[in-house]
């Protein structure tokens, strides 16, 4: 690295050319980044639950992709009914749409002189207009509870159109479709009101809002960083250079994302913010050292070189530890977290590398060609100095109190952390006022539910689903499931077969049963398919009638509901209520993925937390060549991380694909603070061999850099607050909070621990420094009034690092 820095300063054009070349290359890749908000990708990578879900999706045709609700005081009026027909016609004309089912064209089964008749509710293209016709439609719609809650509300104030899309329609196509639908419905608005929801739309809109978010985040974080840099350096190059190099690091990361085919998800969409907020520290470090050396007279290329070489190690350490903590997320079974871990680690290392090559190169160029910038030390009011003094006095004088408070907070937080809930619930990611969430809520109130769930029956061979015993067991389970709360509707082949059987027997309700003959069932279904219902059947049975499914419409996509359904299904299967033909009853659907996500997210959270702690201990131990200091460095990290989970538990913030990155982020940033404090402390203990004094100096010097950095990162993450997603908003606040708590912990809990339990550093003392360690009691501590000269010297250089 030393050589590379030398080269960068010696041959700036080369470095700039290479960096720009690489940047152009990556920039051209960025448009290839795919947005993939689908839930199933969260669990890819051979997850068995995901595999079942994908198999089910493959085997059965979609039942509903987009649900359009039309609400009015009474939809049984000629004008409302005409609107259904017109809207359905227009939607069917859209290239993505396979079919639209609604109350006027849904299959109606009735007995007739020749046996049984399966035909659309009203004749194709017609709309009931006379009171008699409308009364007839109403009677038909009320005759089978299959329609209620699906195509019509019980009270007749609402009706729904169920849109099924072609197989090849990609998520990217759905957002434009959604807006076309919105425009279309706008024209029909009044007195009827329209609402659009459905799993496909929710997923697609998530992707859409992600892009909207990025359009806010990127300028916002750039703006915030710009202001912070300006406040800090008050110079154009002090603002421009770090900002340019952060922009480049972001371009590289997003470009790599495209090359690796990593999709943009809610989690990876925060990458630019994370990189800019976290990565800014390295550039600032470098620039600050160069500027302050220049102010002290070490100017020109030699001054630049020595400043960059000196800051090299601490910057590398900070970057590597942060990258290591982020990379711990790659152990996660949650795919977006894994992606985030890898890309953020890459981005951090890129920002680090650029701050030691690209920035020095640019500085060298500017220094040799233009006027050298020599900062004037503005004597602005210093807020941080007194705070640091107070903190150091507190840590030294009341170390037990601080540790006590730490322990109490830790325990309280543990208690709260136990209450942390996990949930992957796409619709709840949206803000409560967003149109999609409002629509979804209303549709769930009025209809069976917008969330779909599948209970799949697997049998021994082709056509076995038509076996009466199989259908009977399906019916039994279906009834059991309907008894569960929040299940709005359960539909399967059973309903069709029973209805046809009843129709065959003059509509006698006593025959609303499954007929005892497999042939009869098969022929009912054949008749149904010959009567134009073939595509409907594909949602209920697979290609070979080897698998059948109960479709559940639910009012919530929650994993808790999924658990209840799964328990019911498993208990049912275990109790032997299915015939031998049935080889398995599988519960699947988006809500099952959510449940699996919950299981994995907790497990992976523990794992990445553990891995990041171990990595960080190892790296710090390596840096300090002392395992002991490695351990000390993580002490101030544990409390804030647990505190974060405690706050989440008490505030009811869920652990999800966004908030799951906080722990790693906290550790990655917090470890830098520990290292700053510890390295300065170690330096001072070797010089003075006086714990309180070493702590005092360490806090008053490194503390400033720590607080500045923590505040900057916290403010940076606050740009996430206006996000379109509740979960990202919460992430912003929680990260801001953990930045404050980790920085404070490194300035209170860490020194207090050092006071109470000073590590024996005699064996890893700095070469050439011989000291006799005398442990002093807290009472004999050095206070702020006797601050050593070193502190005063550092005061003018807020970001000056003294590691090494």
């Amino acid at each position, binding site marked *: 690295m030393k050589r590379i820095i030398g080269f960068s300063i010696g041959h700036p054009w080369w470095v700039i050319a290479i960096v720009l070349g690489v940047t152009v290359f990556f920039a051209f890749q960025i448009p290839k980044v795919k947005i993939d908000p689908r839930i199933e990708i969260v669990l890819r990578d051979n997850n068995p639950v995901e595999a079942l879900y994908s198999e089910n999706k*493959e085997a059965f045709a979609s039942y509903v992709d987009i649900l359009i609700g039309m609400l009015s005081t009474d939809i049984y009026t000629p004008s409302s009914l005409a609107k259904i027909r017109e809207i359905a016609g227009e939607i069917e*004309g*859209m*290239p993505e749409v396979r079919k639209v089912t609604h109350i006027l064209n849904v299959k109606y089964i009735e007995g007739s002189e*020749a*046996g*049984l*008749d399966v*035909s*659309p509710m009203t004749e*194709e293209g017609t709309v009931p207009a006379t009171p008699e016709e409308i009364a007839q439609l109403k009677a038909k719609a009320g005759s089978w509870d299959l329609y209620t809650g699906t195509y019509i509300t019980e009270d007749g104030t609402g009706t729904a159109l169920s849109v099924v899309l*072609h*197989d*090849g329609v990609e998520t990217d196509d759905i957002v434009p479709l959604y807006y076309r639908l919105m425009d279309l419905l706008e024209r029909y608005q009044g007195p009827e009101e329209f609402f659009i929801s459905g799993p496909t739309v929710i997923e697609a809109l998530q992707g859409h809002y992600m892009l909207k978010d990025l359009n806010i985040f990127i300028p916002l974080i750039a703006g915030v960083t710009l202001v912070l840099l300006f406040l800090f350096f008050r110079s154009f190059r002090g603002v421009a250079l770090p900002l340019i190099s952060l922009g480049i690091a972001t371009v590289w990361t997003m470009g790599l994302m495209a090359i690796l085919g990593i999709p943009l998800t809610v989690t990876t969409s925060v990458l630019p913010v994370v990189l800019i907020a976290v990565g800014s520290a390295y550039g600032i470090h470098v620039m600050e050292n160069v500027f302050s050396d220049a102010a002290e007279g070490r100017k020109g290329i030699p001054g630049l070189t020595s400043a960059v070489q000196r800051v090299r190690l601490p910057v590398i350490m900070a970057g590597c530890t942060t990258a290591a903590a982020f990379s711990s997320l790659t152990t996660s079974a949650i795919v977006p977290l894994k992606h985030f871990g890898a890309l953020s680690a890459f981005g951090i290392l890129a920002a680090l590398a650029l701050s030691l090559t690209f920035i020095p190169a640019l500085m060298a160029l500017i220094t040799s060609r233009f006027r050298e910038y020599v900062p004037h030390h503005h004597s602005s009011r210093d807020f941080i100095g007194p705070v640091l003094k107070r903190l150091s006095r507190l840590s030294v004088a009341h170390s037990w109190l601080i540790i006590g408070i730490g322990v109490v907070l830790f325990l309280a937080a543990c208690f709260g952390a136990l209450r942390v809930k996990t949930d992957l619930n796409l619709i709840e990611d949206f803000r409560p006022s967003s149109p999609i969430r409002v629509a979804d809520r209303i549709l769930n109130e009025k209809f069976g539910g917008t969330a779909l769930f599948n209970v799949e029956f697997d049998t021994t061979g*082709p*056509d076995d689903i*038509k076996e009466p015993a199989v259908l009977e067991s399906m019916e039994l389970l279906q009834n059991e499931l309907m008894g569960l709360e929040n299940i709005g509707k359960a539909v399967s082949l059973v309903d069709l077969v029973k209805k046809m059987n009843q129709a*065959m027997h003059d509509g006698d309700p006593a025959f609303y049963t499954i007929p005892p*003959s*497999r*042939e*009869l*069932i*098969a*022929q*009912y279904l*054949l*008749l149904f*398919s*010959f*009567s*134009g*219902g*073939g*595509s409907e059947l594909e949602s209920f049975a697979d*290609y*070979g009638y080897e698998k059948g499914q109960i479709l559940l419409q639910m009012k919530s996509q929650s994993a808790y509901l999924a658990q209840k359904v799964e328990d019911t299904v498993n208990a049912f299967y275990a109790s032997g209520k299915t015939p031998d033909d049935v080889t398995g009853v599988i519960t699947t659907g988006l809500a099952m993925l959510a449940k699996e996500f919950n299981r994995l997210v907790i497990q992976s959270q523990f794992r990445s937390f553990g891995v990041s702690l171990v990595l960080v201990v190892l790296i710090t131990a390596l840096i300090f060549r002392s395992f002991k200091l490695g351990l000390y460095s993580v002490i101030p990290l544990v409390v804030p991380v647990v505190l974060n989970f405690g706050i989440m538990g008490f505030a009811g913030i869920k652990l999800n694909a966004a908030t799951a990155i906080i722990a790693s982020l906290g550790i990655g940033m917090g470890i830098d603070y520990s290292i700053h404090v510890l390295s300065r402390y170690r330096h001072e203990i070797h010089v003075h061999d006086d714990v309180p004094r070493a702590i005092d100096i360490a806090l008053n010097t490194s503390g400033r850099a720590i607080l500045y950095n923590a505040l900057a990162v916290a403010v940076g993450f606050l740009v996430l607050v206006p996000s379109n997603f509740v979960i990202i908003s919460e992430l912003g606040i929680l990260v801001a909070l953990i930045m404050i708590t980790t920085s404070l912990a490194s300035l209170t809990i860490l020194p207090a621990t050092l006071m109470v339990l000073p590590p024996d550093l005699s064996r890893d003392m700095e070469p050439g420094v011989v000291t006799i360690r005398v442990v002093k009691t807290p009472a004999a501590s050095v206070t702020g009034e006797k601050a050593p000269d070193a502190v005063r010297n550092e005061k003018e250089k807020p970001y000056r690092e003294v590691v090494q």
Partner: protein
Amino acid sequence: MRCSVALVLAAFVCAVLLLTPASVARAEMSAYDIVKKSEDLLDQADDSIAEMLMVLINKKGDRRERTLNASVKKAGEGASKSILFFNTPADVKGTSFLVWTEEGKDDQQWLYLPALQRVRQISSSGKGESFMGTELTFFDMGSHDADDYTFTHLKEEEIDGEPCYVIEAIPKKVEFYSKIILWIRKGNFIPAQADFFDKKGTYEKRGTFKEVQDIQGINTPTAIEMHNVINGRTTLIELKNVVYNSGLSDDIFTQRYMKRGK
């Protein structure tokens, strides 16, 4: 003039084949003439009988088979009658399907279900739906009037080494397909393949005549494939034991006969 334009994939079912030797094509033939000639050649016989094997293959390669016996008879100018008896799958054995077509009128269709022991008349509203789970719709299975289409001779092209006329057929009123492109062999005027575009103009499926046999002097497609590019499914249809002009009685094409089964 009734023509099974939709590549007459249903030729073996609904159209009846004649016995005219393929004549030599003249270069100046119009697109309409080519199609008409092709139709005439396929539509030579007064009646036909065949055993059909349908193999349904989904995207994953799972195969399902169904077998049926088909009889078709001409019933005067522009009219025909056909009847299908299902043999497998076992649970629909004995089921039969009768269709009467007449120019300018809706088809009349009946379904006999042995388990119900009743013949049902079926409305033709579901013509766009799949026939028995195949990639052919009821519409494909039916016959079509060439006058409902406008033909354009696009170019000439080789299919499997055989030169073909490439003809575009656009329906005058779009009902199920917005466009069909036909490849008709220059040598014998038997279609080689056809591409179907759905009513929104999306390329939906390709039908191919895999095998053509000379049966009683009539060039007869005996292996047909329909591949749906949207859902990835394929249907193979094989015709066996084809017999032309055996003098089928009108009694066969009645509701009463449906119940008797094959």
